[in-house]
C-alpha cells in the first residue's frame, strides 16, 4: 500500500519540480528579484520573505519599478457637459495635481481625448486638485469648491478614477449645496460596487473550497494556488509572446486548473483517504502542497505583479450616482451568473444533490448507493474550475502575482466561517460580506489594512456566532 502511494506521489512531485526548473527561464521576469542567498544563516532568516512580497504596493522593500503601467495610478477623463449636438466634448489642457500629506506627487494635463493619468508610488490616500484656472471659461465645476477631491483611496494594484463633474458656466451650485452630499453618496456607491465585485470573486473561489471541505472534511490550504494558477495560465496564453485570443486563454486556463485539481484528488488525496490518513495530517500535507505550488509558480512567473493587457485602458461608465468600469460590470455579472449556476447545480442536478447528501452525512450517502469517490472527484474538478475563473477575474481587476491566491485564501476562510463552515451558500454569502467589509474599511482606515479588517471579521464571528450565519453546531457525545 505504502509503496503504491510512493509510486504515485513521487513522480508527480518531481515532475512538477523538474518542470519548474526547466521552464523557469522562459518566464523569468526582467525585473531582478531582490532575493539573494546569503552565506550566513542569519541573513537567510529574512530571505524567505524578501521575495515573498505580499503587498508589493505598500511595501517599501518591493521593487519600485512597479509604478506606471502595472502599478497604481489615478486617472480620469474630463468631458464638457452635453452640448447642442447631444455629444460630449473632451476638454484638453486642464492641469491636475496629485498630492499626499501636502507633498506633491505628480501632475498631468488632460490630453486631446480629455484623459489624464498620474502614477502614484503606492496604494494609499491621496488628494487630487483640478486647477480651475486652466478650465476653459465655457464650463465650471458642478460644485464650487470641489476642485479638490480629498481622501481618494487607491487600492493596491488598482487604478483609481477621479471624477470632476463639469457643467455649463453659470449652472453650478455652491459648496454647501446638495452637491456635497451626492459626492459622498457617489463615493459610498462606488465603494459598494468594488466591494461587491471583490466579494463575488472571493465567493467564487470560496464555494469550491467549501464544497471540498463539506465532502471530504479537508481544509485545503492549497486552494489559493489553484486561484493563482488560473490567472497565471490565462496570463501566459493571453499576453505576449503567445497572445492567443483571450477567450481561448481563459478556457484553457480553466480546463488546466480543473484538470490539475482533479488530478490532485485522484493521485494524492484519494490514496491518502483510502489509507485512513487523519484530517490534520492531510491539512498539513495541503500546506506543503501550497508551498510547493506557490513557489513553483513564482519560479515560472517571477516575483512581480503583472497586469493583463486586456484590463488596461478602461473608461468609466456613469449613470447618476453609479459609476463603474466595464470590467467591474463584467466581473459582477459573470460571477453572479456562475454562482447562480452553482446553486442551481447543487439544488437541481443529480450530481449536486449527491454532493449535498455527501456533505450532510457521508455514511448515509454511501449506504444509499452514491459513488462517493466519483462525487468527490467532481467536487474537486468543479472547485478547481471555479478557483480558476475567480483567479482570472481577480487578475483582471487587480494584477496577477504568484501569491495572489494565497492572499485571497484567508479571505475565503473568513467568508466560509462567517457563512458557516460546510455550507456552500453560507460561503457565498459570507464572502460577499467579507468583500464589502474590506472595501468599506477604506472609508475610515488606510487601504493597506483592508484585508486585515476583513480577517478581523473572522475573529469577531468566532467570538459571537462560531457556527456562522447559516451553519449548524456539532454534536458532542
Amino acid at each position, binding site marked *: 500500500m505504502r509503496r503504491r502511494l510512493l509510486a504515485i506521489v513521487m513522480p508527480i512531485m518531481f515532475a512538477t519540480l523538474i518542470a519548474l526548473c526547466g521552464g523557469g527561464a522562459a518566464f523569468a521576469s526582467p525585473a531582478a528579484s531582490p532575493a539573494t542567498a546569503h552565506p550566513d544563516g542569519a541573513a537567510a532568516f529574512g530571505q524567505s520573505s524578501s521575495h515573498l512580497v505580499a503587498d508589493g504596493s505598500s511595501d517599501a522593500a518591493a521593487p519600485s519599478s512597479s509604478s506606471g503601467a502595472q502599478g497604481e495610478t489615478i486617472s480620469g477623463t474630463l468631458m464638457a457637459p452635453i452640448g447642442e449636438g447631444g455629444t460630449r466634448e473632451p476638454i484638453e489642457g486642464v492641469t491636475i495635481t496629485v498630492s499626499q500629506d501636502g507633498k506633491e506627487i505628480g501632475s498631468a494635463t488632460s490630453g486631446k481625448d480629455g484623459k489624464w493619468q498620474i502614477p502614484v508610488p503606492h496604494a494609499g490616500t491621496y488628494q487630487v486638485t483640478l486647477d480651475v484656472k486652466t478650465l476653459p471659461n465655457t464650463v465650471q465645476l458642478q460644485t464650487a469648491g470641489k476642485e479638490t477631491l480629498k481622501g481618494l483611496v487607491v487600492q493596491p494594484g488598482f487604478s483609481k478614477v477621479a471624477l470632476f463633474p463639469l457643467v455649463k458656466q453659470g449652472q453650478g451650485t455652491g459648496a454647501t449645496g446638495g452637491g456635497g452630499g451626492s459626492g459622498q453618496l457617489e463615493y459610498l456607491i462606488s465603494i459598494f460596487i468594488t466591494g461587491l465585485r471583490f466579494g463575488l470573486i472571493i465567493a467564487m473561489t470560496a464555494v469550491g473550497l467549501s464544497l471540498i471541505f463539506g465532502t471530504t472534511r479537508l481544509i485545503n490550504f492549497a486552494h489559493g494556488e489553484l486561484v493563482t494558477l488560473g490567472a497565471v495560465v490565462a496570463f501566459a496564453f493571453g499576453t505576449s509572446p503567445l497572445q492567443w485570443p483571450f477567450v481561448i486563454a481563459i478556457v484553457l486556463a480553466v480546463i488546466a486548473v480543473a484538470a490539475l485539481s482533479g488530478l490532485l484528488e485522484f493521485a494524492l488525496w484519494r490514496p491518502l483517504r483510502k489509507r485512513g490518513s487523519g484530517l490534520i495530517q492531510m491539512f498539513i500535507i495541503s500546506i506543503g502542497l501550497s508551498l510547493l505550488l506557490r513557489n513553483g509558480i513564482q519560479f515560472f512567473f517571477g516575483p512581480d505583479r503583472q497586469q493583463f493587457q486586456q484590463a488596461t485602458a478602461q473608461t468609466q461608465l456613469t449613470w447618476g450616482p453609479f459609476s463603474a468600469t466595464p470590467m467591474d460590470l463584467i466581473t459582477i455579472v459573470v460571477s453572479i451568473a456562475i454562482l447562480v449556476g452553482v446553486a442551481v447545480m447543487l439544488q437541481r442536478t443529480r450530481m449536486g444533490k449527491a454532493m449535498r447528501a455527501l456533505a450532510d*452525512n*457521508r455514511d448515509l450517502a454511501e*449506504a444509499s448507493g452514491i459513488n462517493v469517490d466519483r462525487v468527490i472527484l467532481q467536487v474537486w474538478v468543479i472547485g478547481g474550475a471555479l478557483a480558476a475563473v475567480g483567479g482570472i477575474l481577480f487578475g483582471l481587476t487587480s494584477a496577477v502575482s504568484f501569491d495572489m491566491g494565497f492572499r485571497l485564501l484567508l479571505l475565503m476562510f473568513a467568508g466560509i466561517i462567517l457563512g458557516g463552515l460546510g455550507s456552500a451558500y453560507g460561503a457565498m454569502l459570507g464572502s460577499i460580506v467579507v468583500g464589502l467589509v474590506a472595501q468599506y474599511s477604506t472609508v475610515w482606515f488606510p487601504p493597506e489594512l483592508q484585508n486585515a479588517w476583513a480577517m478581523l471579521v473572522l475573529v469577531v464571528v468566532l467570538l459571537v456566532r462560531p457556527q456562522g450565519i447559516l451553519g449548524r453546531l*456539532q*454534536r*458532542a*457525545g
Partner: protein
Amino acid sequence: MKSDDDETGDAPAGFASMTAEGAHAAAAEGADAVASAMDEGEAIDPSLAAGREKVLHAQQETAHELSPAARALAGVTAEPGVHKPDPILVADQVSRRFGGLTAVDVHRLEVQRGTITALIGPNGAGKSTFFNLVSGFDKPTSGTWSFNGRDITGMSAYRIARLGMVRTFQLTKALTRMTALENMMLGATAQRGERFLPSLLRPSWKGQEKTIEARADELLRRFNLAHMRDDFAGTMSGGQRKLLEMARAMMVDPALIMLDEPMAGVNPALTQSLLGHIQALRDEGTTIILVEHDMDVIMSISDWIICFAEGAVIAEGRPDDIRSNHAVIDAYLGARRALATDGPDGESDGGAGR
C-alpha cells in the same frame, strides 16, 4: 500477563458459578467475589444462553426481594414523571431541539439515589442527547435540572463531573496514546500536580501520585485490565476500552455514574462480568444510570426503568411494570419494524456522534 483468551474463557465459568452459588453474594461483594466464586464453580453449563436465563432469574429475585434500592422504590407508582423518595437527579421540562427535530422533551424525570436506573427506548429516542444535556456536554433549548439537590442547569461539564456526576460515552473515548494506567490516573480529581506551578515541584505531588496509582491499579485489577496496565489504550480491544472507560470514570469517585451503552460491542461473556461490576457499584452506594438496548440485560439488572420515545418519557417503572406496558411494547415493536426495513441499527447512527 494474561492473554485475552484466558479472560473470555474465565467469564462463562464465572457466571455459571454465580448461578450455582447464588448471584446474591456476588452482587454484594463485587467482582472480587465473582473471581473467588469462580474457583469453586462446579456446575458449568456450556450453553451461554441457558446460563444467562438462569442468571437473569436469580438476579430478578435479588432485585425484588433484597435490594435496598428496590425496597425504597416499592411504593412508587409506575407512571412517567413520578416523584421518588430520595432523588439524586431531577430534570424538569428539559428539551432540546435540532432545527425542526425535537430530540428531547422531558417533562419530569427523577432518578432514585442508590439504584440502577435504566434508560431504554428505540434508536434516536433521545437517550444520548439527554445524557449530553444533563452532563453539561450540550446546551438545552429549555429546562432545569439538579443533582444532589443542587441546581446545575447550564453548568460546564467539568464542574458537573467534579460534583460527582460522571458519564461515559456511547462511542468509547479511550485516550489512545496514553497507557491504561495513565488513563486511569487522569480520572482522579483534586490532584495537586495538575496546577501549573506545583507541577514543577515533584515532591509536592509525588505522595498523592503514589496513592492515586495504587487506587488505579486496584481498579484495573477489578476490571480485569491489570495485564494491560502499561499498554497504550489504543492497542486495546473495543470491549476492553469500554471497561477502561468505566474504570476510569470510577476514578473520579462519582456519586452518580451515567453509562451510555456500556455493553455495546462487548462480548457476552464480558457482559456478564460488566454486569457484576455495575451491581457491585450499586451495592457500594453509587447511583447508576444506564442506557442499554439488550432487554434481557435491562430486565435483569435494573431497579427502575425509564422508557424514552421520540424525546419524551413514555413509561417508567420496575422491570415487571415495563414488561407489560403497552406504550413500551408499541414504541419498541414500532421501532423494530421500522428498523427491520432500514437495515442495521445502532452504530451507523453513532457515526454522527463525533
